């Protein structure tokens, strides 16, 4: 019995030793790759996408840890982790305006502005990956697909399928009414009202009772695109957590 146990341990030890050797070899390969193509990763968003997709396909997460080889040698880590910080700051600065919902486009613009002149350009794909990592921190980061793009949620508000669908409906005009929800989604008035009230409570929707016809529920996250505003100095102060 004991002999079998021993053998089992030895087998695992062998494999660990093998892995350690292969790891060293891989590190060397990665170093070589980095020396030739590190610039490509930093400067070419399309190449980054390819790189990320390939990693995902084989089951590797190059952004899992700052201590990982990918991060240390290709510098991908710092790029995305810093972007994460910038995303948090923009969302904090604008939260009082939009309740914690912002379009990917607006987030992109604001982040680019904040990055300054000699920072690398970032793509929307880069933002999406950084946001997916931020989810891990538990403060409510999430992505809601609307009209071919995304709304970025940065507060831990409960948004279920009903809320998401109404947001998608509102995306076209920036606002939505109970009547439109009934017509498009075939819902009862009460269900529509509950969803809209929840969005009002969370500060994600504003009510316009003076609209012609029935009251309109506006989403600042959506209509701010039309009136792209600067972040005021007061808001910028709020942004530093």
């Amino acid at each position, binding site marked *: 019995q004991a002999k079998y146990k021993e053998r089992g341990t030895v087998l695992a030890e062998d494999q660990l030793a093998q892995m350690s050797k292969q790891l060293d070899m891989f590190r060397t390969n990665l170093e070589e790759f980095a020396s030739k193509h590190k610039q490509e990763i930093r400067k070419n968003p399309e190449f980054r996408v390819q790189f990320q997709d390939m990693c995902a396909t084989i089951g590797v997460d190059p952004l899992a840890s700052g201590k990982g080889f990918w991060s240390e040698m290709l510098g991908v880590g710092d790029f995305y982790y810093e972007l994460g910080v910038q995303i*948090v700051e923009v969302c904090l600065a604008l939260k009082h305006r939009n309740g914690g919902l912002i379009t990917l486009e607006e987030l992109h613009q604001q982040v680019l502005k904040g990055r300054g002149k000699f920072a690398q350009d970032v793509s929307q794909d880069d933002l999406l990956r950084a946001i997916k990592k931020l989810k891990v921190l538990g403060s409510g980061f999430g992505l809601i697909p609307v009209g071919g793009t995304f709304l970025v949620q940065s507060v831990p508000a409960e948004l279920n399928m009903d809320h998401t669908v109404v947001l998608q409906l509102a995306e076209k005009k920036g606002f939505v009414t109970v009547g439109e929800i009934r017509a498009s989604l075939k819902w009862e008035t009460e269900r529509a009202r509950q969803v809209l009230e929840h969005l009002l409570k969370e500060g994600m929707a504003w009510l316009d009772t003076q609209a012609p016809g029935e009251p309109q529920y506006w989403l600042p996250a959506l209509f701010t695109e039309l009136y792209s505003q600067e972040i005021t100095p007061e808001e910028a102060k709020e942004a530093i957590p």
Partner: protein
Amino acid sequence: MDRFSWTTGLLELGETLVVQQRGVRLSDGEEKVKFDSGVLLLSTHRLIWRDQKNHECCIAVPLSQIVFIEEQAAGIGKSAKIVVHLHPASSNKEPGPFQSSKYSYIKLSFKEHGQIEFYRRLSEEITQRRWESMPTGQAMQVNKDSQAGRIRAVGIVGIERKLEEKRKETDKNISEAFEDLSKLMEKAKEMVELSKSIANKIKEKQGDITEDETIRFKSYLLSMGIANPVTRETCGSGTQYHMQLAKQLAGILQTPLEERGGIMSLTEVYCLVNRARGLELLSPEDLVNACKMLESLKLPLRLRIFDSGVMVIELQSHNEEEMVAAALETVSEKGSLTADEFAKLVGMSVLLAKERLLLAEKMGHLCRDDSVEGLRFYPNLFLTQS
């Protein structure tokens, strides 16, 4: 810059806007001109620049005037640029800001970024030459010019050839990069397979793998970015690295925590720590995994997860339940408070203020009034006055 003409900036019939970008400066070759800050618009027919401060100042050049374009990467103190090489201006060109220029190219400086997208779109438009199939008032003139331009500008051919070579070179670099990337991924895949087989062995031989070997294995996984396939760990995918990190964090966060009333959200910690580091930043997972080890390492901070999923770091000496008593007093004084109001009064983030009020409610001290005007908390009179 003498290829530009004044324009109203209005699009012609049949002309469509492709992309636009703010914060663009024009230069005449290597020389700065007064077109310092404008919106650059790309249409199917023209490149249009409009001054951001004075909208009347608007100039355009037809896309057919473009010979080729190049990218110039950003540098320290310098924005990224696109260099646009142009045919000489035609004799019947509409009047513009310059009568003559000693350069045959202009530079577009992207002070507020956006050059990647713009370059891509501009390349597309130049290749597709949609202006030829979508005639507008101007297009007719432009076509004639490009014909004449081609015959006249013989020296351009040399430049075009150089560009072709450069394009091939760039393509070769990219395809080499992709090739190398594929080979690298093959090797990485082998590592993943090996780690799975080891993980299976560990699962089968429960207890026969030493602590030390488990730690080694976890650190190999960490280096490769492979998720830990062995699920029965007590402290997340904690490794030596995370243990060290936890100890570091305890040192770094002591003062900031004291300054913030003993509690901070994990997002705040992430930003604070990474802003301070500047380089070799922590990933969100690094932070979470390190914080999960705080308690077991008997450090003076701990990780706490609220019902809502919000994660915070607290000083061991911090007692949220005691803070609830203080919160109750504050709410009672004011009659009622929303999370926003409470946050402002006490000087906390709204996120943490809300968690405290929710905890108070959970403990029965506060009642909520949930209306369209927001979530408001009142002292629970049912409890105290029944």
